[in-house]
């Protein structure tokens, strides 16, 4: 293969302007981290709320929670991005719709964050439900017998244990959020994948570009993994779950 290698490309100037390609990738990385962390917060809050609700004795709440999870779990992420960005604003009143489409600040970022947050929250809700249901029935009964209200039973008995059980799948989910954020390029968020495509088109050094971007994504996911591993270690309850040593 007669490819013209140029590892110095990252320090070269872009074709029309004073920035370097490296500055493109760094700003892309910044947006990737911003989208990922913001949607992770949305996902955790909603995911825990809905996952919890799905284990309560209130049938209509359980059904509502199930419907939410199935809705966001059964539609591909890319399609959801397009739905939020192109379809939803069309159903708003004319003036509001035009505002959302033209004036809303950082509209691509907001749309992508909400979309990725909701998508991930459905997955977390499912894990939270599984975590709570994996606890012995006696825990809930004991909590209620102690005179705790149902919310108190969740707050002091069930959720702290369920949280520890589901930490490993939550770690995967946290890593996924970084990787899934790459889909946001499709609606025009200037994140890492977007900058990679732009850099490859501008510089024609595609192999170096994508190798660099691969390393950056790997680092993001790996750091996420280490952070979660640290939380897992610190929150461990001796004697609970076989993993405790």
């Amino acid at each position, binding site marked *: 293969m007669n490819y013209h290698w140029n590892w110095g490309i990252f320090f070269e100037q872009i074709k029309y*302007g004073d920035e370097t390609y490296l500055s493109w990738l760094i700003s892309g990385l910044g947006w990737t981290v911003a989208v990922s962390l913001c949607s992770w917060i949305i996902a955790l809050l909603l995911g825990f709320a809905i996952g919890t609700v799905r284990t309560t004795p209130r049938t209509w709440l359980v059904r509502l929670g199930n419907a939410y999870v199935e809705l966001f779990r059964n539609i591909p992420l890319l399609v959801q991005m397009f739905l939020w960005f192109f379809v939803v604003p069309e159903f708003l009143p004319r003036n509001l719709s035009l505002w959302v*489409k033209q004036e809303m600040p950082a509209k691509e970022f907001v749309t992508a964050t909400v979309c990725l947050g909701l998508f991930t929250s459905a997955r977390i809700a499912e894990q939270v439900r599984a975590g709570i249901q994996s606890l012995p029935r006696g825990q809930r009964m004991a909590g209620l017998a102690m005179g705790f209200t149902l919310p108190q039973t969740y707050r002091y008995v069930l959720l702290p244990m369920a949280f520890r059980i589901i930490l490993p799948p939550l770690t995967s989910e946290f890593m996924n959020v970084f990787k899934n954020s790459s889909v946001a390029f*499709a609606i025009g968020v200037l994140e890492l994948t977007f900058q990679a495509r732009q850099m490859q088109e501008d510089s024609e050094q595609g192999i170096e570009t994508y190798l660099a971007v691969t390393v950056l994504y790997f680092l993001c996911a790996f750091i996420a993994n280490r952070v979660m591993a640290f939380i897992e270690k610190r929150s461990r309850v001796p004697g609970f779950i076989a993993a405790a040593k």
Partner: protein
Amino acid sequence: MKFRLGLSLFLLAGMLAATSVFAEDLTGTLKKVKESGTITMGIRESSYPLSYLDDKQQPIGYHIEICNKIVDAVKKELKMADLKVQHQPVTSQNRIPLVTNGTVDIECGSTTNNEARQKQVSFAVTTFVTNVRMVVKKASGITSLSQLDGKPVATTSGTTSVQLMRAHEKGKTVNFKEVYGKDHSDSFLLLETDRAVAFVMDDNLLAGLITSSKNPQEYAIVGEVLNIEPIAIMMRKDDPAFKKVADDTIRGLIKSGAIEKLYSKWFLSPIPPKNVNMNFAMSETLKGLIKHPSDAPAEFYNKK
């Protein structure tokens, strides 16, 4: 014996074409094609009207016809009447890797010849020229870059139109809000649904998008030319023998006037599959290039 064979071959070759070479002297693409018995043409699936698929999924278009002429010349050159021609669909992301790694021998799509790409690949003499301009809704009354201050402007991600706008003298003082579509039809959708007031792209692509839109009369291509881009057939770098076959074929088409006929067939007449007419007149730059063929990169036409 060997000498006599060589001599007679030499004479025969000289009679056929002054450019013929001996089989054993073949290098690069010609050698590869001779040995494999096939030539692989890179094609685009929807680059109207340069290279696209018809309703029978066969590649057609202005560049496809020119490439077929080049393939005919290769057959003649290698004396292989039964040379097999394969078609490999390519995208703007994979076209250069596929040419450099040998999957595609000759790319007949809509590739801009520029300096960065010339580090990876080589181009035949320019056969088409596009101008980067903008499409707007006629009702908006916009006719120049300077009217875009504070307005959302669409372009396609992975292209460099935004940098071109910023680099243009009229664009320097204007504060755009760029919005990005994933591909050209997405970007056009941004304009169609009022998320953007203008969409900046190669004018031939814009003409194609307008033609295939719901209300073609609503749109107009307006404003300053942001960049002149020579579009050419692409091949591997450092392969002078193959490039010469391609260039000579195109020069032949130019000399005989065939290229103008091809141009009006694809750009100025109704074309399949929908029988619409692009009505895309030849630009001044291309007219000049037909008088003096050249494989100069885009930077040559856009000196500032």
